């Protein structure tokens, strides 16, 4: 627990240092805790700065506390302790309707007894804007989501994707300070979801608004986000941009949660600067980059992405070479998924470019796999569990 805190604190420091030129953070969580029953903390000691104009995703499995965080920010839940600031205002006790935060809900929550236009007018009418201005803003919002002709329809008459866009337009129409999205694309089919991901991203860039997006879909998070906060068990495991998150996961949980991961257990034999030597369970020795601080004799989990594992000839130049047998080959068009059994019943999944490796080997063939030390990360198995 302490270790991870230090780790996160270090990361957070690095982040703030990198963005010193930015003005004060848009939203700040400071030592925020939340419990529903007085025993289990749903959110534990949350510290998070959200920058103005960024697309921040809260990513994590269900029950990890990401939605609770969003609800606290929206004002539907109050933190048990700690402080949430919007700009320079503490908003812990501010009721939701005074926060001026737009929100897109999982099931859209478009008011079924109002037309699309009335739905969009609603937040503006509540703010008592003049009628002409309301009409102008509603038209602009409808055009922004390319649904200008659907104003007089009722939400039920629209498809899921159209409802989604109206929900987005409604959350934006009153120029909120901040827009929150709670798994808004979960109900859409894959193709539409991917399309909407890009559309939301474009609108966010164009308007320069701050978006806090909650999802459990890691590919969605990677596609859309400027930064991603990975949640598990009420704690942010890592807060970083998508590339860092994927390439340099801060711990075993992040490595497994984001993208596909091969995990091999081993023991540290020696430490050499950023690198260390380890002995795997099957006695093989490998060199890896240290993802977490480890010392001699520590247990470690080695993490390597399937596309970073080289096969046969390509493995020749790698510092770590291991022998094994092909147990499964799946053809996926652009690449092959090859399952290799290493000595000691260890398995490793390899993504190999189909063009290079098609028909080069068969099930049961002996094969060499190679991993470069810089792509093999030694992580502390105790962290992020």
């Amino acid at each position, binding site marked *: 627990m302490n270790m991870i805190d230090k780790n996160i604190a270090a990361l957070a420091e690095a982040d703030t240092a990198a963005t010193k030129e930015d003005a004060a953070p848009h939203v700040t969580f400071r030592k925020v805790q939340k419990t529903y029953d007085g025993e289990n903390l749903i959110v534990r000691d949350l510290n998070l700065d959200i920058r103005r104009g960024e697309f921040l995703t809260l990513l994590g499995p269900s029950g990890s506390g990401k939605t609770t965080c969003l609800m606290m920010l929206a004002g539907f839940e109050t933190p048990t302790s700690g402080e949430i600031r919007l700009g320079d205002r503490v908003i812990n006790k501010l009721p939701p309707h005074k926060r001026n935060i737009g929100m897109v809900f999982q099931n859209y929550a478009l008011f079924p007894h109002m037309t699309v236009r009335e739905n969009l007018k609603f937040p503006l009418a509540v*703010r008592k804007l003049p009628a002409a201005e309301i009409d102008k803003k509603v038209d602009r919002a409808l055009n922004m989501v390319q649904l200008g002709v659907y104003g007089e329809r009722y939400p039920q008459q629209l498809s899921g994707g159209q409802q989604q866009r109206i929900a987005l337009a409604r959350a934006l129409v009153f120029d909120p300070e901040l827009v929150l999205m709670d798994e808004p694309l979960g109900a859409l089919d894959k193709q539409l979801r991917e399309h909407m991901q890009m559309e939301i991203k474009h609108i966010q860039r164009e308007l320069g608004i701050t978006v806090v997006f909650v999802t459990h879909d890691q590919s969605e998070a990677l596609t859309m986000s400027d930064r991603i906060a990975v949640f598990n068990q009420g704690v942010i495991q890592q807060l970083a941009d998508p590339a860092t998150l994927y390439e340099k996961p801060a711990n075993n949980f992040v490595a497994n949660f984001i993208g596909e991961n091969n995990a091999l257990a081993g023991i540290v034999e020696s430490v050499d600067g950023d690198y260390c030597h380890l002995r795997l369970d099957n006695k093989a020795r490998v060199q890896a980059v240290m993802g977490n601080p480890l010392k001699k004799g520590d247990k470690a989990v080695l993490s390597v992405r399937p596309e970073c594992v080289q096969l046969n000839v390509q493995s020749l130049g790698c510092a770590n070479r291991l022998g094994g047998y092909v147990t499964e080959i799946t053809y996926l068009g652009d690449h092959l998924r090859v399952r290799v059994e290493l000595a000691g019943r260890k398995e490793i999944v390899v993504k190999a470019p189909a063009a290079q490796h098609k028909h080069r080997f068969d099930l049961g063939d002996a094969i060499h796999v190679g991993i470069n030390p810089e792509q093999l990360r030694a992580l502390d198995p105790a962290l992020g569990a």
Partner: protein
Amino acid sequence: MSKLSATMPAALASENTVSLKRQLGRAERMKKLKYGALIAPLAIFLLLTFVWPISALLKRSVDNPEVIGALPATSALLSDWNGENAPDALVFAAFAREMGEIKGTPVLAGAAKRLNMEQPGFRSLMMKTARAMPPAEGVSPRDALIEADERWADPATWRFLARNATPYTGRYLLASVDRTYDEQGQIVRAGDDQAIYVDVLKRTFGMSAIVTAFCLLLGFPLAYLMATQPPKIANTLMIFVLLPFWTSVLVRVAAWIVLLQTQGLVNQALMALGVTDHPLQLVFNSTGVYIAMVHILLPFMILPMYSVMKGISPTYMRAALSLGCPPFKSFWKIYFPQALPGVSAGALLVFILCMGYYITPALLGSPKEQMASYFVAFYTNQTINWGMAAALSAILFVATLILYMVYTRLTGQQDAASKAR
């Protein structure tokens, strides 16, 4: 050849569609027969126990068989009579003959009673006349009738008889709204001693409206609470709502009498608390009727509201709040319109049940609280006046139908708005 190849597919196609349609028709027919057979027992049951009795009762409200049944030939002749001059000898002859035939039978008594209802004194006229019939040998029926009672010389008497010798009459329905026919057969206001039904109907609607309003005021918050609580609490609340529902209405009414009487628990409690220094009259007046009826009908209000409210996702309220709408306004603008179908269904149900309420006002109210159904019971059980009982029922029935149509129109618009796809 080319012609052949061009027409062949078309011919084939049309032949195919015909047989396809036939096949479809056959398949559908079997399905329809099967469904029909499945619902037939229920349909027959409803027909026998619901449609037929109601239509028979409605017919009773306009039925007028007594006079025409007793004096068929006279009635037929009178229907052709112009009604201005004295009727001709044929009418007198037929009347005298028929009066002689029914002398001393219940048919005469029925007709006499029926006529007496409308014109007091007509029973004795009929009885007296019948006793003098048939006329003695050689005396003309006309002379014999005028001999029996000189009123038979007056065309007005015959006009009255003619008016009541029709197979159907609007008399009962008119009487239920305090109207009647005058001498000339025009519809006029009934005399003050008979004009009580408009007040009864007004009272019926008024009391129903008040009970519905109280049920709504008490039921809405509870239904909302149940719909928003976790299932465990909601189920417990539901049991409390349903518990009295499972007890006989009669038992509940009796229990209220015990509780509300002058020396009852409620009065004792009120006096012990110092709210009042003398027992309040809580029962056998309108207070008792309202308390018991609201209590009995509350579940009918709560259940439809609860079922609708349960389907309203709490995210709507959250969405309204996040859009900047204050809590109460959000509730009113977003939640309430969505709950409205349940509210109107509950209100309609309570109102309709109220209109037909008999036992509670009968046991807990004074004569001033009696509603329309009390008079229906009065006419069926005590005076055996089926016509009036049926007419009052018909008015309640029509009022219910109108209410129901208003309801479907209101909710129909809502549905069209929200369900149009």
